[in-house]
């Protein structure tokens, strides 16, 4: 007949501990991976940023010294003519994302939200903006001004 050896109390508690540990890890991983799916479901699917060329204005719209505001579907843009040279800046304030306004009398871009001030070159002069306004590449073709603007698509 086989002899039935009862495990000691110490052995039992070790076994119990190991069993609890394994079950605990299993439950954590199982439930954790379930919650991971919830998180992935909520996290938006965003395509990588692409530079798109968008027709923004005609060169005739922007005489020398002028600042021209255009609202494109991809975002608001300021195009300025400095001595015949065209420059484009993103009109989104680098602080909290409001749209800056051009004040010709002050030669400054001012953000209405927290009074951030940028110079005509887009450099941040005063207030809370952490960096200059974003510079955008520009192309002029057949009297048209095209702006290279970063765009991103989101699944809605």
């Amino acid at each position, binding site marked *: 007949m086989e002899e039935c050896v009862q495990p000691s109390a110490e052995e039992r508690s070790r076994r119990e501990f190991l069993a609890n540990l394994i079950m605990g890890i299993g439950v954590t991983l199982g439930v954790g991976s379930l919650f991971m799916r919830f998180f992935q479901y909520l996290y938006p699917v965003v395509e990588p940023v692409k530079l798109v060329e968008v027709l923004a204005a005609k060169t005739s719209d922007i005489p020398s010294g002028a600042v021209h505001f255009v609202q494109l579907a991809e975002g608001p843009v300021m195009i300025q003519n400095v001595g015949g040279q065209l420059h484009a800046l993103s009109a989104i304030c680098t*602080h909290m994302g*409001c*749209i800056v306004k051009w004040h010709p009398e002050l030669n400054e871009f001012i953000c209405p939200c927290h009074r951030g001030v940028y110079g005509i070159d887009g450099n941040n002069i005063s207030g809370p903006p952490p960096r200059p306004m974003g510079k955008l590449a520009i192309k002029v073709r057949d009297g048209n001004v095209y702006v290279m603007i970063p765009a991103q698509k989101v699944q809605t």
Partner: protein
Amino acid sequence: MTRFGRWLYNRVPVDPETLRKPLREELPVHLKQWMLCLGGTPLLLFLILATTGILLTFYYVPDPSHAYESVENISFHVRFGWFIRGIHRGAAQLMILTTLLHIIRVFGTRAYRKPRELTWMLGVALFLTVMGFAFTGYSLVNDQLSYWATIVGTNMVGTMPVIGKPLLYLLRGGPEVNPNTMSRFYDIHIGILPTITTLLVVGHIVLVRLHGVARLEEDPRTETYAFFPDHVLRELIVGLVVVIGLVNYAIFFPPHIGPPANPLITPATIRPEWYFWPVFRWLELVPEMIGLAGVLLYVLGMFLWPFIDEGLEKVAPKRHLGRIVGTVAFLITLGLLLWEGIAG
């Protein structure tokens, strides 16, 4: 026990005496003063907000292309829509005010001390949910102010180091404010926050009842009075005054709606509702990272205040350092609020 009582007891075997026990709690007499029993008012307002909120969902459409119209419809066409929205709006404002007063009172009388630290922390968490309700609720109107407040508010989250960007994406449902954002804010406002708030309220009240109401430090009175019916009646009177006030507010200051959201133009004068003024002014004064770090530290300080106060007491006993630090923080907040209110 009546026949019905016996029938019910057989099916729900809970001794009626156990249920009656919490009603018999004896409360310290200082609770008879309204300023010292402000905790019940936010609870009443929460119930009013939940009721009017559910009513608003019958007509509100959480979609950027229809939200503004639906709020307009509620405010100007639906029968008593202006009244329901007015009460909801007024109760929200009053909720913030009374929660703030309650916090100031508990702070002033140091009722958060051992063993009530967790009650205080749950209270601070409740205050944060109230602010979350206010922020998400206003964004749902989808007028200019709500749109730009959403842009600024979510961008603020995005400036946090490391977790900022993922959190911003999660909140907005994309890198920019898009149609996903409104559904998310709606879900947060009517589903997630109410659930969290209910759990926190239950926890807060259970802890208050388990510990009993804290006695005032310098109050020599030892008399007590009964929770039911004495205190309940007092709360009912306060509740009636609040309801009368809200009804009048809704009638004399019916809710308005600003121009519809326009992602092309940030209005020349823009600022959030009064309860965000201190943060708004603070963000204007300091660089981005300091601004955010300041807000986070302030909130953390509020959370851990019972322990900070205890530490200060140990460092310099009887110097009331805690009271000094707290008063300075309060005065700075009030100063920023008034500054924005007057100069903004």
